[in-house]
């Protein structure tokens, strides 16, 4: 199969769009010190609500809003258990993952494999005609542009706004946050819900744009775990996390091309490869960054100091 480079890159951009949104959402959550392990289920559930609401109301906007609210609601439940009640965030996340996934299959069953609305491609006038970059960056649907925009927005928010700074302080040292007159609990709950909203959007990005439709399986199962791994191994920096997301998209695509390029290797190898390959690439990066050489230090970064730890005032 021969394919032009711009088409290849454009395909990566599209496939990675939901992953970018979800991973950025989780980055925000974890920067505030909360681990939301429910991503995989949340994505499936919000993909379902997004699809069902959009097709029943015939409004894509409502579909996206519903999916975002779903993600936000699941995150809120996690925040209640993991932040407000100081229970294990990991346990809560696990339980919610499975609850959400099965809830999506149960509630969504009547709508499975129905024709539904989908987001159209909206090439940006003029820009889409630029050679190379026009195809790669400016000939997509709105949600892909949103995923592009989310990257600078997220970085800007985290590193160049007051609330972004507060969010980071809550994950770094809630006591310090409290000493500066800010309630870290509130910051953490809001950050968790904001992150959840982005994850919800990622779900809708699947069911309304990237893999339009709903069914069991929808095809977005498993992505949540990749997003979670990306955040850890992307060292909690949005840019590195996003780079990982695109790397995953590329691995998936390469798997398809390599199936042709290496006919002697059983095709199954390439079909199965992207998920474990991604996780092990990340683990490798992680392992090598333990040794302090300059290149791998690029990838090293530390978790927020209070990640996953509850805070309560004496």
């Amino acid at each position: 199969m021969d394919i032009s480079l711009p088409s290849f890159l454009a395909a990566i951009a599209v496939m990675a769009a939901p992953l970018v949104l979800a991973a950025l959402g989780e980055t925000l959550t974890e920067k505030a010190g909360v681990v939301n392990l429910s991503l995989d289920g949340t994505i499936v559930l919000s993909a379902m609500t997004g699809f069902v609401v959009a097709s029943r109301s015939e409004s894509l906007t409502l579909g996206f809003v519903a999916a975002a609210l779903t993600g936000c609601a699941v995150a809120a439940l996690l925040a209640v258990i993991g932040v407000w009640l100081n229970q294990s965030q990991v346990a809560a996340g696990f339980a919610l993952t499975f609850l959400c996934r099965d809830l999506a299959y149960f509630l969504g069953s009547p709508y499975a494999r129905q024709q539904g609305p989908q987001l159209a491609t909206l090439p940006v006038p003029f820009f889409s005609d630029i050679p190379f970059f026009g195809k790669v960056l400016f000939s997509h649907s709105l949600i892909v542009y949103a995923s592009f925009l989310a990257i600078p927005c997220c970085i800007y928010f985290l590193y160049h706004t007051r609330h972004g700074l507060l969010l980071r302080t809550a994950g770094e040292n809630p006591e310090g946050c409290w000493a500066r007159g800010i309630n870290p609990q509130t910051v953490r709950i809001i950050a968790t819900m904001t992150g959840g909203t982005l994850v919800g959007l990622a779900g809708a990005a699947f069911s309304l744009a990237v893999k339009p439709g709903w069914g069991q399986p929808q095809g977005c199962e498993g992505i949540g775990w990749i997003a979670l791994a990306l955040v850890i191994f992307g060292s909690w920096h949005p840019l590195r996390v996003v780079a990982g997301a695109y790397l995953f998209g590329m691995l998936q695509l390469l798997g398809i091309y390599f199936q042709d390029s290496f006919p002697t290797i059983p095709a199954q190898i390439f079909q199965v490869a992207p998920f474990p390959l991604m996780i092990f690439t990340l683990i490798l990066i992680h392992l090598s960054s333990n040794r302090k050489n300059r290149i791998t230090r690029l990838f090293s970064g530390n978790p927020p100091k209070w990640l996953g730890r509850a805070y309560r005032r004496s």
Partner: protein
Amino acid sequence: MKTLVSLGHFLYNRTATMILIAALALGAVSLLLLTLGIAPTTIAVAIAHGSIFSWQKFSHVLSLWIPLLLCSCGLLFTFRAGLWNIGVEGQIICGAIAATALLREGSFGLPPALILTLALALSFFGGGLWGSCAGLLKNRGGVNEIFGGLGLNFVAQGLILWLILGPWKRAGIASMSGTDMFVKELWMYTPPGWRVAPAALLLALATFALTAFLLGATRFGLTVKATGNNPLAARLYAIHPERTGLAAMAIGGGLAGLAGGLQAACVYHRLLPPISSGYGYLALLVVMLANYRIAPVPAICLFFACLAAGSIQLPIVLQLDSALSGVIQGACVVSALLVHGLQKRHKGEN
């Protein structure tokens, strides 16, 4: 007398908590069903009919209970050691692969019981090996065991597919329906009218007893508990926290592997791609719902197995999707977390 009273109090408190959790979870699910216009009672009746109202159904439930109990026992070890073993699915698969490697070769003219025993021992080692891998990744590389386990799950998934479609493919045509069946004499004995092999049932019960014994009545169990409790202090007692953690991962993986071996040897009589059937994840929920304690695990496994088996009736009788059983299982765990958290808060510990 005093101990009796305090025991009574204790049981009363535990029971009250359990009832609270169940009421919250089932209440929420019922509410959901009512808004969908479905009567929760009909669902309950259908599930009960599909699980406990006949011996045949119940023996089906038991056949689900066995692997679930085995995996949960394994998780009790790892949770005790303070580790999140999310790689259970991969460990089940590796156990099944190890057992198949022997069973597919036939009986070599040896007594089938011997071969089966050997195969199950192999499955324990296969799963244990996979569990140790996650443990090693954590100890040596500082890789969070959640993601190490997840990565290994995917690898195991790839491995089993490759074996089934490649080297171990069926005579003639490779098929996703799995490898060729093992020879009949290597099927574990199932009496007529039973849907579960008595030997497997006994093995599961024995494993649970052994788990309870090891964790509750041996120095090793105490060591594991201490490690999970406070790895920092463990070293003062000449306990090697990393080694203990690795041992827990190996045992946990081994028990999951045993579950996989049993799936191959007495449920499917062959290796097939989805042999792990999500038992690994379900077992995580079981142990969380048990609040990481040993005693409630068999009962919760039974409850979950009834839900899983009974939910098959939902499409047959009510044309409803059977994912509802998963919803109930998840809701139970979430409400357990809520109830325990609220209780702690009420006591002022929060």
